[in-house]
C-alpha cells in the first residue's frame, strides 16, 4: 500500500515536471528573435508570402493562445505538426526514436560492462597502476568529444583496417527486416532475418562503443567508490578470514552490495545517453531522434523541438521513476 502511494505521488510530480518542461521550452523557443517561417521559406521570399505562411501555420496568434492550444493538444496526445515536414510530430518521433533507443541500449550494455569491471579492478588494486590506468581510461572517455572519438574509430576500423562498416544502420544491399518495433536488431531477430541481424550488429558496434565509452567514467567511478566502501566492511573481513578465495569474496560478497548505488547511476546514465546520442547519430549517419531534434532546432521547427524535448523528458522521468522504484523495493527506507 505504501509503495502504491509512493508511485502515485511520484507520478503526479512527474506531470508537474512535464508541464514545467513544456512551459520552459515554449518560452525559450519563442524568446529567440527568429522566425520559423523565414527558416522554411529561405532568404528570398517577399514579405507578403511570409505573412501568409505565418497565418497558415497559426503563428500570428498571440503567444498565450498558441501555448494554450499546444497544451490542449498535448493533453489529447497531439503534439502538433512539424512546420518543416508537415507531418504529425508524434509520427516523426515514433519513426526516429527506436533507432536512438536501440543505440542507447547497446551503448549502456557496453558502458555497464566496461564501467563495472574498471570500477572493481580500481577498487581491488587501489592506487596501483591498474587503478591509475582504469581511471585515466574512463576519464578520457568523458573528456574526448564523442564527435572526435567517432571519427577516429571510423578512420581506424572502417577506413584503414576495413573491419567494420562505416555509416548507417545496414549495408546498402542488405534487405532490411520488416518494421515491427523499428529497432533493426530486434526486428531482424523477430523475423528471422539473420543477414540483417548480423549486418546491423556490425553497424552498431562503433557508434555504441563511442557512446558507451563516453558514459563509462561515471559508472566506473561509482562502482569503485562503492566497492571500496564495501571492501572495508566487517563481513568481508570475516569472509576473507574464513579462507574464501579472492574471486568469491569480490564477486559474490562485495559486488552484490556495492551495486546498489550503481543502479541509480546506470538509470541516470541511460537517460543521458538518450539525449547524448545527438552527435553520435550525426557522425554515424543514424536516423535517430537526436538528429531529428537538432534539425528541428536549426530550422526553428517549434512543434518538433517541443515534441521531441517533451518526449525525451518523459522517457528520462520514466527511467528515473523506475530506478527509484527499484530502489524503493530494495531499500524500504526510501519510501518515507
Amino acid at each position: 500500500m505504501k509503495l502504491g502511494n509512493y508511485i502515485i505521488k511520484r507520478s503526479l510530480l512527474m506531470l508537474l515536471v512535464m508541464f514545467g518542461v513544456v512551459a520552459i521550452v515554449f518560452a525559450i523557443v519563442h524568446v529567440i528573435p527568429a522566425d520559423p517561417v523565414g527558416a522554411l521559406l529561405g532568404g528570398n521570399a517577399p514579405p507578403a508570402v511570409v505573412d501568409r505562411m505565418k497565418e497558415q501555420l497559426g503563428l500570428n496568434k498571440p503567444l498565450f493562445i498558441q501555448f494554450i492550444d499546444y497544451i490542449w493538444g498535448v493533453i489529447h496526445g497531439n503534439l502538433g505538426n512539424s512546420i518543416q515536414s508537415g507531418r504529425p510530430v508524434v509520427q516523426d518521433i515514433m519513426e526516429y526514436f527506436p533507432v536512438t533507443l536501440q543505440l542507447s541500449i547497446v551503448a549502456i550494455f557496453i558502458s555497464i560492462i566496461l564501467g563495472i569491471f574498471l570500477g572493481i579492478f580500481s577498487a581491488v588494486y587501489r592506487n596501483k597502476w591498474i587503478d591509475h590506468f582504469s581511471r585515466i581510461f574512463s576519464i578520457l572517455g568523458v573528456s574526448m568529444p564523442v564527435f572526435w572519438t567517432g571519427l577516429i574509430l571510423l578512420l581506424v576500423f572502417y577506413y584503414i583496417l576495413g573491419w567494420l562498416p562505416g555509416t548507417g544502420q545496414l549495408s546498402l544491399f542488405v534487405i532490411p527486416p520488416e518494421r515491427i518495433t523499428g529497432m533493426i536488431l530486434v526486428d531482424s531477430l523477430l523475423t528471422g532475418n539473420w543477414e540483417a541481424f548480423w549486418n546491423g550488429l556490425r553497424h552498431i558496434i562503433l557508434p555504441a562503443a563511442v557512446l558507451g565509452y563516453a558514459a563509462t567514467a561515471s559508472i566506473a567511478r561509482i562502482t569503485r567508490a562503492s566497492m571500496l566502501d564495501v571492501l572495508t566492511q566487517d563481513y568481508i573481513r570475516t569472509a576473507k578470514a574464513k579462507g574464501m578465495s579472492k574471486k568469491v569474496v569480490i564477486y559474490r560478497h562485495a559486488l552484490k552490495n556495492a551495486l546498489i548505488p550503481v543502479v541509480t547511476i546506470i538509470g541516470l546514465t541511460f537517460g543521458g545517453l538518450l539525449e547524448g546520442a545527438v552527435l553520435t547519430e550525426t557522425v554515424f549517419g543514424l536516423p535517430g531522434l537526436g538528429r531529428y531534434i537538432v534539425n528541428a532546432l536549426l530550422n526553428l521547427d517549434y512543434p518538433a523541438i517541443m515534441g521531441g524535448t517533451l518526449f525525451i523528458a518523459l522517457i528520462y522521468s520514466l527511467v528515473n521513476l523506475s530506478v527509484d522504484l527499484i530502489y524503493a523495493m530494495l531499500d524500504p527506507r526510501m519510501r518515507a
Partner: protein
Amino acid sequence: MRKLLLLALISLFVVVGFSASIPKDTVVIGMNTGIFISFDPAVCYEVEPSVLVMNIYSDLFKLQEINGTIQAIPELAESYDISQDGKIWTFHIRKGVTFANGNPLNADAVVYSIKRVLKLGKSPVWLFESLGLNSKNMDDTVKKIDDYTVQVTLDKPYAANIVMSIFAESWGGIVDPKIAQSHDVSGDMGSTYLADHSAGAGPYILKSWQRNNMIVLVANENYWRGAPKIKTIIIRDMPESTNQQLSLKRGDIDIAWNLTPEQINSLKGDPNFNVVSVPSQSNEYLAVNAGWGPFKDVRVRQAVKYAIDYNSIIQNIVGGYAIKVQGFIPYGYLGYVSNVPFDQNIAKAKQLLADAGYANGFEVELVTNTTERRRNEAIAIQADLAKIGIKANITIMQAAQMYKKMREQGIQMIVAGWGIDFPDPDALAKPFADYRVKQLAWRMMWYDNHAADLAEAAGFELDQSKRVEMYKDLTNYWFENGPFAILYQPLSYWGTRSELKGFDQTAKGYSLSFDLTKMYK
C-alpha cells in the same frame, strides 16, 4: 576456452566482409539530407531535393546550359505561342507522353499541376504568383483549350525567358492527377503521399525515402526520351563530410556531395577520383544599410567596396572555389557583366571616407550567420574595414534569425548569399535593385527610383538585345550607387569515383538544372 571464443568472435567480424561493390547500373551518393522536407513539386523548395524533383517530374520547359548560358528550352510544351500583348501564353503539349505508370500526360494534367501549386500555397508558390497567377484567379488564368493545349494568362507582359524559366523548375513538375487525387487526405491534393512517393513523367521514380537515412530512385522504363542508363540511384544520408570522404575513398559511394575545399583538394591528382566543379547559381555579398547613418552617403558605400580584398577572400576562405564576379548578374546569365571595377585600394577608400566627413571612421555592426565560411568572411572584412578606420563589430546568428532582422530592415551591415530562383537576370535585378519588390534592396533601404525603374523596365523588354543593354546600364549605375558589394560567385563541387562518367554533364547548371540521365559507368 573463453579467450578462444573471444578470438573466434573477433576473427568472424574481420572475415565476414561487408563492402559489396556497387553494381555497374547503380550510383550511390553520400549527402547530408537533413534539410529534405518533401518531394512534392508543389512543396519542395530546398536546393538538393529540388534537383531530384527535376529528375522525377517533367516540366513544360527544361533548363539547360547552352554555350555557357542557362536557358529554358521547350520540353513537354513542344511549342508555344505568345499573344500580341505578351500576356497570353498558349502551350502545345507533346503528344504520346505518359507518366511512369502509363497514364497519359495531357492538358488536364498540366492545368491540374499548375493549379495544385497555387491552391496548396506552399513555399514555391510565390514564383507563380510573381507572374500574376494565384488561387483566386486561377480558373480564369489557367485553362485547358483542348486535350493537348493549355492557355495561361499573365497579368503583365513578362519577358519570355522569365516565364519559361519559372515553368521549368521543380515546382513546374507535371503531376499525375489520378495518383494525386486518389491519395487526397482532407483536401491536401495528395501532398502527404507525394512527400515520399512520386507521380511524374521524369526519368526516375522515387521508390522510397526513409527520412534521415536513405533515398532510392529507380529508372522510369517508360521515360519518353528513353530509359536512363543508370537504373538505381541511392542517396545515403551522411551528415558528416569526413564520413563522405572516407566512404568515397573506400568505394562505398560514387559521389561525395558535401566535401570541404580541403577534402576535395586531397582527391586531386589521384586517378581513382574526379573533382567536378561548376559555377553555382548564387551570389555571396556584403550589403550595407543605405538608410543607416554614414551609409546614407554614397561615398561611404563606395569606400567600403574599395576596402575589401576580394582576391584574398576567394583564395584563402573559399579555397579558390569561386569566380570573381562583381555585378549582380552571375557568370552564365544573360546580361552578365565581366568587368570587375573594385579591387582593394585603401588610399582611395580613405579619401572617399574623408570626403564624406568620416576621416576618423565609425562603428558598425556586421551581421552574418553561423556557417564557418560566412564567419571567416566576416572576420576578413572586419580586418579590411579596420584599415580605413571603420570598426565593424561582428554578430553571428542563426540564418533564420538573421533574415528576420533583415526583413525588418534592422541590419547595418551583412554578409550573406542570394540563391537564384530562376535563371533570368530578372531574378537578380529585382531583388538587388528594385526596392519596390521588397527584397534585398528594400531590406537594405536603398530606395533608388532610377535603379528600380530600370530593373522593372528590363523585365518587360521583349527584345533580347535591348534587354541585355538595359541590364548593363543598370549594373554600371548600381556599381556606383548601390549598397552591395558582390564578393564572388561560388563554385559547387563534388568528389566522384573515376568509374562514374558524365557527372560533369549532369552537374552543368547546378542547382537550376541537374540531369541525372547524363551519368553512366
